[in-house]
């Protein structure tokens, strides 16, 4: 094992037993070590093997190709945009003739658990992005509840959204538009999200008071997998983008 030794801090303040037995910490030294990447424990490796075989068969299937890597970031992110747009696409497919009712998608940043790489996207990648068995849920929000949702987006410093645009100005959400039309507080809006947030998870309490709810009985992960397979069939690739759907006002 090759250690790269880097002593960052070393101090000796030895008052020790000469003064008092109560003296405790006398020195702190810290370092970081990079461990040889190829060294493995064979018993642990062997224990993984039978599980890995089944695992690999299921998750190594390539379902799409991405032009760039998709990552999370503050305000607006390529990963968040992709995720929301994909869920909107799938939900509309599930809604069929009612697809026009869907306005907006919203998810929590913490729910997207990993980046997606540039190049081939496998089922395993989507599992790591969305490991939770969360379901696609639609909620009908009043204008006031929708406004609360927008405040939450600002409070969180921007979270994954789709179907809408807004500007974060201080602690306020301004210039809100939905499917290209200005936000109207007297209207009701259908929002697609996860059952986790719909049940008030991550303190999205206003979702609990939605006037109507549609549970689509589809896992979010499967919605993303289905979207990837669809665009691949159409000969398309994933083209990560930031389109200014959330803007920061100075």
């Amino acid at each position, binding site marked *: *094992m090759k*250690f790269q*030794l880097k*002593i*960052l*801090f070393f101090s000796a303040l*030895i008052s*020790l*037993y*000469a003064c008092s*037995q109560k*003296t*405790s*910490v*006398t*020195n*702190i*030294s*810290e*370092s*970081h*070590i*990079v*461990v040889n*990447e190829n*060294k*493995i*424990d*064979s*018993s*642990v*490796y062997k*224990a*993984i093997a039978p*599980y*890995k075989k*089944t*695992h690999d068969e*299921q*998750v190594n299937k390539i379902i799409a190709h991405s032009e760039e890597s998709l*990552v999370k970031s503050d305000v607006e992110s390529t990963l968040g945009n992709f995720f929301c747009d994909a869920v909107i696409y799938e939900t509309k497919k599930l809604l069929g003739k009612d697809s026009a009712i869907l306005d907006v998608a919203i998810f929590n940043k913490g729910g997207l*658990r*990993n*980046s997606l*790489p*540039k190049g*081939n996207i496998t*089922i*395993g990648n989507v*599992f*790591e992005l969305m*490991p*939770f*068995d969360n379901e696609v849920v639609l909620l009908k929000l009043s204008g006031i509840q929708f406004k609360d949702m927008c405040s939450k987006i600002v409070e969180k410093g921007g979270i994954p959204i789709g179907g809408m645009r807004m500007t974060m100005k201080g602690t306020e959400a301004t210039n809100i538009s939905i499917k290209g039309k200005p936000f109207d507080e007297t209207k009701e809006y259908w929002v697609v999200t996860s059952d*986790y947030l719909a*049940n*008030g*998870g*991550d*303190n999205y309490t206003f979702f609990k008071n939605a006037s109507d709810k549609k549970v689509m009985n589809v896992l979010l992960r499967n919605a993303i997998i289905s979207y990837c397979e669809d665009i691949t069939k159409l000969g398309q690739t994933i083209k990560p983008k930031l389109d200014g759907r959330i803007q920061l006002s100075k």
Partner: protein
Amino acid sequence: MAEFNYQNRRDFLKYFVGTSAVLAGFPALSKEVLKSKDLSHLTILYTNDVHSRIEPFPSNDPKYADKGGFARRAAVIDEIKKENDNILLLDAGDIFQGTPYFNLYSGELEYKLMSLMGYDATTIGNHDFDLGVDNMTKQMPHANFAFINCNYNFSNTSLHDKVVPYKLFDKQGIKIGVLGYGIELEGLVDKKMYKETQYQNPLEIANATAKLLKHDLGCDYVIALSHLGFSFTEKKISDSAMAPLTENIDLIIGGHTHTFLEHPVKLMNKAGKEVYVTQVGWAGIWLGKLDVYFSYNKKKISHNSNNRKI
């Protein structure tokens, strides 16, 4: 690092012997004690938020390509055990959730591998409830390490007799007390998953438990396994906020916020004593390592910390 630790320790012993020789009333150290390189040296190894990262990150991962992996972490631990067998291997929760291994096997493999690696204890993170409190109970026969938590009341759940509030470890005469506590579940975990688990504010219970460990049970060193998170912008209890209000805890090994702390943070507790707060990110990318040196009369005398990138 091995050489450095050892050198450091020898310097200390040299100093110690020199000093004690001129101090009246100090019992002389036997040669056996001085020779026994493990007697007064405890190595604490730790992880948090490993999140089912059984294999290293794939080579095309944008952030952590080729990092982590259980078999490689096990190899690092094996190496450290060669240097010093006085080891405590701990985890601060969120073992579950994050790769298809969890979706396919519900946590069985994570517990099996941690047992194989020689983990001594873990605490319970919010994601460990992801397939329900009963799933944890179901997977526990695969674990031969302790589950420690003092602020969740599990009495009306299947975990009622599976989780302990603290555990004592005797490492060649050094008595270590380990307690654990977790984050508020309401609003974070679906109620249908945690069922009748009742969260209680960790501060009072942790202080009472630590006092019991230090004063009544005579522990030389008290470690808290925490899944509260390092710090929050909003007003919410965290390791950083809670540490100054604690007493009798020497080290807080944290989790939840996936914070990569290059060095443990040293804070002053309520009694004006040092308490270290540490956390090593997530996914087993780093292995935390803290060396604590105890004198012949078991007084803690020095810390030496380094976090290993795997």
